[in-house]
């Protein structure tokens, strides 16, 4: 609001022009306010409708969950005519899908099977497929999620095609969907992807695999040699989470990886697996490592190391970096009597900063 003093200036537009502009803006203003109010009103209406349908649909969903098929009859969950009629309306169908999905995510066993049955019986997979055909990425992603939660394996080829989608989010959801449907088998896409797996995606996949049954496929070894470093990182996380002991020897090779994050994960993974026979490799790798990996190695040695490593860990008490000193002290405390004895004999034990570091290490261990 600083412009209004240049009135007689030759470059200033005339007042009538400005007045017209002002009127236009005011009209736009009114239109926006009007639009907002109308929007609020229709939304309130929609919410009310949704609520009404939700109550009706919930009743059906609950009945479906406890439903038991009668002997010798085709499995068909009885649906009231009123509900069936309301399902002709798209909004009502979406409410039903959401209810089924929320239920399915939390339930297992016959309850879950029945929900899937109801989903098919009401033909709701058509809605999900319709979303897949949409050109909007968020609808595609939503459709993929719905089909995956509802275990619609028959559409796997369509879903699989999306693992190569142009849009990153769609691609990610499709990968997750395949894993959700096929567990470890679904990880096949790891062999072909050349785009990075984001950390978020790794967490999502690990979560989906938590309840997966069956053994991880043999090609897990190939993933560890993947050219895509995020695939190697993810595989190591998977090995740790699933406690795949038989891969412990392979981890030693990962200590030579060119990517720091991979080496870091490999060290963490050794700790999870308790791979005590890898300790000499860790000690050998240590001197050439970056500080981050060195810290991880000390941490891991504290967990899986033996008396043989006490001497090596002890030398790190004299490292210039205080973080290394602290991690070494922690490891020694964890290594039991031999480690504690080393600490007792350490010449600078009562000098700063060692005295504080050692006290912290000991208090932490006691907690």
């Amino acid at each position: 609001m600083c412009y209004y003093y240049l009135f007689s200036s030759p470059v200033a537009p005339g007042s009538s022009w400005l007045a017209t502009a002002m009127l236009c803006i005011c009209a736009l203003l009114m239109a926006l306010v009007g639009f907002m109010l109308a929007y609020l009103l229709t939304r309130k209406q929609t919410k009310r409708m949704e609520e009404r349908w939700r109550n009706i649909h919930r009743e059906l969903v609950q009945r479906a969950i406890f439903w038991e098929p009668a002997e010798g009859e085709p499995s068909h969950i009885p649906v009231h005519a009123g509900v069936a009629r309301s399902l002709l309306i798209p909004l009502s169908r979406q409410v039903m899908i959401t209810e089924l999905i929320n239920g399915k995510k939390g339930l297992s066993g016959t309850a879950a099977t029945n929900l899937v049955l109801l989903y098919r019986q009401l033909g709701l997979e058509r809605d999900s497929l319709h979303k897949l055909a949409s050109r909007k990425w968020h609808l595609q992603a939503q459709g993929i999620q719905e089909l995956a939660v509802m275990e619609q394996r028959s559409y796997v080829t369509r879903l699989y095609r999306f693992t190569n989608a142009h849009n990153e989010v769609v691609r990610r959801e499709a990968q997750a969907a395949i894993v959700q449907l096929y567990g470890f088998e679904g990880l096949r896409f790891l062999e072909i992807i050349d785009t990075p797996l984001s950390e978020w995606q790794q967490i999502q996949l690990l979560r989906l695999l938590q309840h997966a049954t069956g053994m991880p496929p043999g090609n897990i070894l190939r993933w560890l040699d993947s050219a895509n470093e995020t695939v190697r990182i993810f595989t190591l996380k998977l090995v740790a989470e699933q406690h795949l002991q038989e891969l412990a020897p392979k981890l030693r090779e990962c200590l030579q990886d060119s990517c720091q994050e991979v080496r870091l994960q490999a060290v963490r993974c050794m700790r999870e697996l308790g791979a005590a026979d890898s300790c000499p490799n860790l000690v050998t790798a240590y001197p050439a490592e970056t500080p981050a990996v060195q810290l991880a190695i000390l941490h891991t040695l504290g967990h899986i190391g033996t008396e043989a490593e006490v001497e090596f860990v002890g030398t790190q008490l004299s490292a210039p970096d205080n973080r290394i000193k602290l991690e070494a002290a922690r490891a020694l405390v964890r290594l039991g009597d031999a480690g504690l004895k080393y600490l007792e004999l350490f010449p600078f034990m009562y000098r700063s900063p060692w005295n504080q570091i050692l006290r912290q290490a000991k208090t932490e261990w006691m907690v």
Partner: protein
Amino acid sequence: MKILVAEDEPILIRIIEMRLKKDGYEVLLAEDGQQALDRLEQGPPDLIITDIMMPYASGLEIIASVRARTWPKVPVIILSAMGQEDVVLEAFQLGADDYITKPFSPNELSVRVRRLLTR
């Protein structure tokens, strides 16, 4: 027998309610953590089933609140989507008696409730 169920997913809490009522229990519902804590003010239930991640107060807070009281031991079942080892261990450390990971089967829940109540 009164059972307090704390769960924020509306469809799940109803399912649990229906299943437990079928078994003849009286069911108290809390749709968020604060409601559950308020319910506890009114006296001890015979058993508590609680989610961990809920609005206003977590299931772990509910366990802590129950265990801080001088009531005779109230069994607590955790019903959570978090199945990681350390989460489960923490819950038991705080005093949970059983841990069920979602997705769960209502029938299994019913069996576990019965087992804890007849022990």
